[in-house]
């Protein structure tokens, strides 16, 4: 039965580490992409980005409720996916409104990035107030449709294993949606004229202006892309877990950590950073006792939980990785442009 032990251990690992980390990583990667795009084009660290995420998710929840009350649903898929495009439009419009009324003034003044960062703190306050005002500060679940793709019990019975593998439909949806979003974003940035001019603007503003790129257009497109990414990330996270404004606000640190670890300003780095942070958070806080019980002979069984860090310190992990990267390789994993 030596082989089964090994398979059991692997299934256990897949169930508790790999699958959750993949879906959390995809959500984080999308969110970090939006942060990094704002950073790359508009040149400031946006402290309000986590609250844009809760704003977008809130809009999605409201549309979901509207659809549900009208009897519209997406069958086995969550209704939220139908609501997502509408929520993105609302979020993008609100983003542009805030940009017009707040950020554009400082852009014209050519203010320092740090001033824009403080301005984003003000926007953060306002967004938090708006979100809490409209939907309240409490936990909300808005998932409907088919919950599981693979259920632990069925898996166990089918393969005759001791360990079961659960794949929630939200996890599969997350990975697929994130992949589609990332591929379209990279296609947009690399192949289309608008995407190329965005990259040009981000690389060298003056040169881009000289070659006739309209900066206002770039700014608008940047906010729209950022809204698409951040709303999608927020909805996927909320479907997978639940929506609570304070939890979303707390994602700010992992987002920043992922952006810096991957190489701030670099889209591909943001994706890598997102997965690195997610995988480290989950691998370092998982208790490996059972895993080793399967793998090792009885005499060597571990006595403790075999957990590197308690789950209370999830935030600490993104920070520790951040610090290591800052010391060892301040430019991040993808050494490229630092904007």
């Amino acid at each position, binding site marked *: 039965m030596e082989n089964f032990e090994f398979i059991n251990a692997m299934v256990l690992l897949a169930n508790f580490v790999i699958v959750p980390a993949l879906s959390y990583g995809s959500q984080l990667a999308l969110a970090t992409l939006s942060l990094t795009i704002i950073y790359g084009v508009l040149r400031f*660290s946006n*402290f309000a980005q986590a609250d844009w995420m809760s704003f977008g998710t809130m809009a999605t929840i409201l549309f979901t409720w509207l659809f549900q009350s009208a009897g519209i649903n997406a069958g086995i898929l969550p209704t939220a996916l139908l609501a997502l495009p509408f929520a993105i439009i609302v979020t993008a419009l609100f983003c542009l409104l805030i940009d017009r009324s*707040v950020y554009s*003034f400082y852009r014209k003044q050519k203010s320092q*990035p*740090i*001033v824009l*960062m*403080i*301005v984003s*703190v*003000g*926007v*953060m*306050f*306002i*967004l*938090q*107030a*708006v979100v*809490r*005002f409209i939907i*309240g*500060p409490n936990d909300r679940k808005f998932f409907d449709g088919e919950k599981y793709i693979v259920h632990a019990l069925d898996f166990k019975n089918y393969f005759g294993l001791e360990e079961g593998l659960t794949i929630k439909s939200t996890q599969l949806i997350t990975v697929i949606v994130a992949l589609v979003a990332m591929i379209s974003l990279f296609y947009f940035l690399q192949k289309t004229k608008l995407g190329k001019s965005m990259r040009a603007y981000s690389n060298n503003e003056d040169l881009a202006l000289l070659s006739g790129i309209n900066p206002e257009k770039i700014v608008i497109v940047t906010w729209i892309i950022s809204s698409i990414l951040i709303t999608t990330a927020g909805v996927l996270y909320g479907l997978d877990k639940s929506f609570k404004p304070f939890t979303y*606000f*707390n994602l*700010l*640190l992992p987002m*920043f*950590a992922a952006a*810096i670890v991957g190489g*701030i300003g670099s889209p591909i780095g943001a994706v890598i950073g997102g997965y690195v942070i997610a995988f480290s958070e989950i691998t370092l806080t998982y208790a490996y006792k059972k895993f080793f019980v399967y793998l090792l002979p009885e005499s060597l069984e571990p006595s*403790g939980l075999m957990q*590197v860090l*308690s789950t*209370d*310190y999830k*935030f*600490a992990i*993104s*920070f520790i990785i*951040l*610090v290591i990267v*800052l*010391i060892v390789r*301040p430019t991040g994993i993808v050494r490229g442009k630092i904007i």
Partner: protein
Amino acid sequence: MNDELRAPIAFTIMGILLAIVGFTQSWSVSLSVINLCIISSIMAIGVNLQWGYGGLFNAGVMGFTALGGLTAVLVSHDPIYEAWDKAGVGIVISAIIFVLSITALLFVFRNIENKQIRNTLIILIIVFGLIGINNFYGPSIDIIESINPAKTGFLGGLGLPIIFSWLIAAVVAGLVAWVIGKITLRLRSDYLAIATLGISEIVIAIVKHEDWLSRGVKNVSGLDRPVPYEIELQQSEWFLNLVEIINFSKLEAMQSLSSRQDLLNDLVIDSSGIFVKLCYAGLFFSVLLLIFYLSQLALNSPWGRMLRAIRDNEEAASAMGKNIFAQHLQIFIIGSAIIGIAGAMLTTLDGQFTPGSYRPLRFTFIIWLMVIIGGSGNNLGSIFGGFFIWFIWIEAEPLSIGFMNMLAGGLEYDNPLRMHLLGSAAHLRLFIMGLLLLLALRFMPKGVIPEKIQKK
């Protein structure tokens, strides 16, 4: 408006606002607000040193505040001898292993050139360090947390008067700031903001979850006080006489002896509360004055001028031979130490340490608002900002409820919209804060009391 007049006018308005609260709500409320205003002002001065003098964005104010609070507990709480007897050795050994591992890591990192050997050594140290610590640490904390968990369940503190903790908090916060500064100050300003945001979350995670150290979310209450207790005052002769003398005319007006006695009792209870708050206010105010005086001295010294030169033009200052990193580190440590003092004072005032109550909005970003609205680079501005913003933060709630009542005026009592509006009134103050910050940045970027540029 004449710049010279701005400060007096601003503070007069502030005084009038506080007096209005005193007359309309009560003087006790007004004094509570003032006490927290003073603490906020001290925090704002700390941030102002970092941002206004040094141009450093510290987004981890909350962490230093919590460190100050933790220090207050660890200094003033009585030691739990039983816990020390049974598990003290284990904790001390794990602490020693921890320190040794960090020293070894630093040594390896600095002195071994060969990358392969260095990386292997680092991994070995981390693995063995973790195993060693886990061996002693886990069992010890289990023992500590099992000793009388309802009341203590932690190691306790030193049992010293709590007022010492204010000084020690400065040292603790300064040490932590030194470590963070060493890592992040060489990098760009954004990194400092993000790294400090992270460290503050970690500090909070530690005080929330390391129950053997801080009791975690079970809170430590009943901390000792630097001022008398209300109940002691109510029973002491001199205080009764004092109240009688102050309220002589009121008491005289009473006809019967019994009603006179009742009034005196009420007055004594009221005034004992006010007296305690006044004592706190006096203590806090002296700390504020001292810190303000020292900060002004520093600002006007050659050192302060050098810092501003660095802030305004790093390249030029560097060309003049100033060590930018060292100066930034200094100012970062000093500012954080001041925030630590304020944190300890806050816990002293509350009489309890509640790790769950530390939220970044309340303890980091509000302080930033104070500095920016008050006037970056001006300590008087920070004090005003501390008073003004804290006042708004407190008074925004009754005002928002009033505003919502007005909005919902025509609606039925149990109308769902009305219920929703009233229920969400508390969130309006976030909106007010954000709006204030944005308006200030746009129309008054130098703040209410701008920085004075001395030209000689």
